[in-house]
């Protein structure tokens, strides 16, 4: 009987050797993930009728609109953004020039940044602006709670028709470095 039991004892004794191998849980402090968030921000498509007073037929030289945004109203945005690229694409098939001003504002309507666009008639424009952590412009981007867009029609003698449009697109590529601290 002793001989039959011995293998079980050996097995049990071998369990004394059970252990956690050479692992280092402190490595968790070094964990960093770097996702990229591609986010559509603002867009508009204005037509000839937006610049014509329907009652008088006169040109309206300036149009403006604004919206609140809360992309940056969280701790990840405050702490973990490495840099962000604001991307703009503008298609203008008006036979007139436009000056579009893109205002980044805080919640007290203080202007933090102005991003201007001079758009020639019948042209396309692509603009990427990088905001890098540690710069003033980055800090302003993070504080942004409202975007105000002002579209200025630059007068000329050309006559507008109803096929014309000014298509404005904007998006953000946000590069994050989220660590364990």
């Amino acid at each position: 009987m002793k001989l039959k039991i011995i293998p079980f004892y050996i097995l049990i004794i071998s369990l004394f050797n059970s252990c956690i191998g050479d692992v280092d849980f402190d490595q968790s402090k070094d964990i960093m993930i770097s996702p990229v968030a591609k986010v559509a921000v603002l867009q508009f498509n204005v037509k000839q009728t937006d610049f014509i007073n329907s009652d008088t037929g006169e040109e309206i030289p300036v149009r403006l609109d604004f919206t609140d945004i809360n992309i940056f109203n969280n701790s990840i945005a405050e702490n973990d953004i490495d840099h962000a690229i604001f991307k703009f694409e503008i298609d203008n098939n008006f036979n007139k020039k436009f000056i579009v001003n893109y205002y980044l504002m805080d919640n007290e309507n203080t202007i933090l940044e102005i991003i201007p666009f001079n758009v020639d008639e019948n042209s396309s424009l692509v603009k990427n602006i990088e905001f890098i952590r540690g710069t003033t412009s980055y800090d302003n981007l993070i504080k942004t709670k409202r975007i105000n867009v002002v579209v200025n029609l630059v007068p000329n003698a050309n006559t507008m028709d109803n096929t014309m449009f000014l298509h404005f697109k904007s998006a953000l590529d946000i590069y994050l470095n989220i660590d364990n601290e």
Partner: protein
Amino acid sequence: MNRKYIFIILFCFVINLSSQNKKILFGFNEVPQTLMANPGAEVDFQWHSGIPILSSNYIHAGISGFAINDIFANDGVNINTKIATLLPNIDNADFYTINQQLEVFNIGFRRTNKKDYISLGYYEEFDLIAYHPKDLVTLAYEGNQDLNKIFNLRDFKFKAEVLGVFHFGVSRKWNKKITIGARIKLYSSAFNITSTQNSGLFFTKEGTNNIYRHRMQEIDFTLKTSGVIHNEAEVEQSMFSRFVASGNMGLGLDFGLTYKINKNWITEASFQDLGFIRHTKNTTVYKVQGTQEYDGLNLTFPTGNPIDYLNQVKNELPLIYGSEKYTSLRSLKVNGLIAYQFGDRDNASCLRTFYENSFRSKIGLQIYSILRPKRPQFAATLFYDKKFSKFLRGKITYTVDSYSAKNIGIGLSTRIGVFNMYGAIDNILGLTNIAKSKNQTINFGINIIMDFDKTKP
């Protein structure tokens, strides 16, 4: 030192170091808790009483996709490199699970008709299953930088519950060949969180109206909770009432069968926890349903009051939540066994017509399955069960399951007078380096057992 005491000391270390699989208890009729795995098990007890709190402690933890060592090995490789290598290899069928049970009491006795063995008790259980939400992890890890990637919400499935279980069971030896049994369970859910029926897609593409177009398509997300503590008044609710009469009550049934095919062949089968819990108190159900496409806030340059563009977007896919009754199903477990018995019979001098003494050796095949939210999990086990003496019985198993194909387990049960101590370990190879192990289980307990005297009519 007496051999028995040496064994007890070693046994205590086993308990401290190792883990067990309930597959080992199935068919391991030396231990009263085998009736919890198969209420139709044939046991030879006149009565038993588990030592309160100590009669059965069970914990199982498993990760099917990787091992701790894959990430935290001290191998000089940057942990972020290891994670980046590992993540693509974890499948959406991989899961994380923890199951813990603590038996508060367990008693049993044989009725005067000698055919029926009654057992009853109460245990606490914590059960968690979470599937690897591969797409959501990818979204969190990489973001939506890949405009060809479609993220599916379907893989977000998890369930966690804490409950108390009263149970009452009867095992009846029907005739020389058949023993059947059933157990009824009364569940009191202390805490439940369930989110298993989700669907919907999220993707970002190049847009027409804007540079990007985001679409959340046919989102159907539901998260159900009960027993979540929201305020101090709920904190003051006693643990007793949470685990015994929480108001979120349910019923369950176990059923089992032992069939002696002939002198040497035996088969057993059982199912456990065919049941439900109705959650009616302290419940909250969260839902997000619908489709939303977003390509940026669309300015329209109104002439009048400005439009609240942001709220327009928010309202398209709202989070709705409120108190709502719901029903959760328990995870049904199924066990099966076929075995060949051989060798000497236990206490061979006691020959009887109705109660035969069992063989001391048994070799066979077991199957085990548990229904989980995504799909059943299966295990197949080869085992060798040997009664060495009245003092010691052991069972060794080889299992192929969701975690590995080289899972060796061992179960030991010892009797010293009326005291029974048992313990079992699953995946003993994993103990050589737990960090490399994908699953470990421990189950141990102490009972007082009075054997059934088969020689008396």
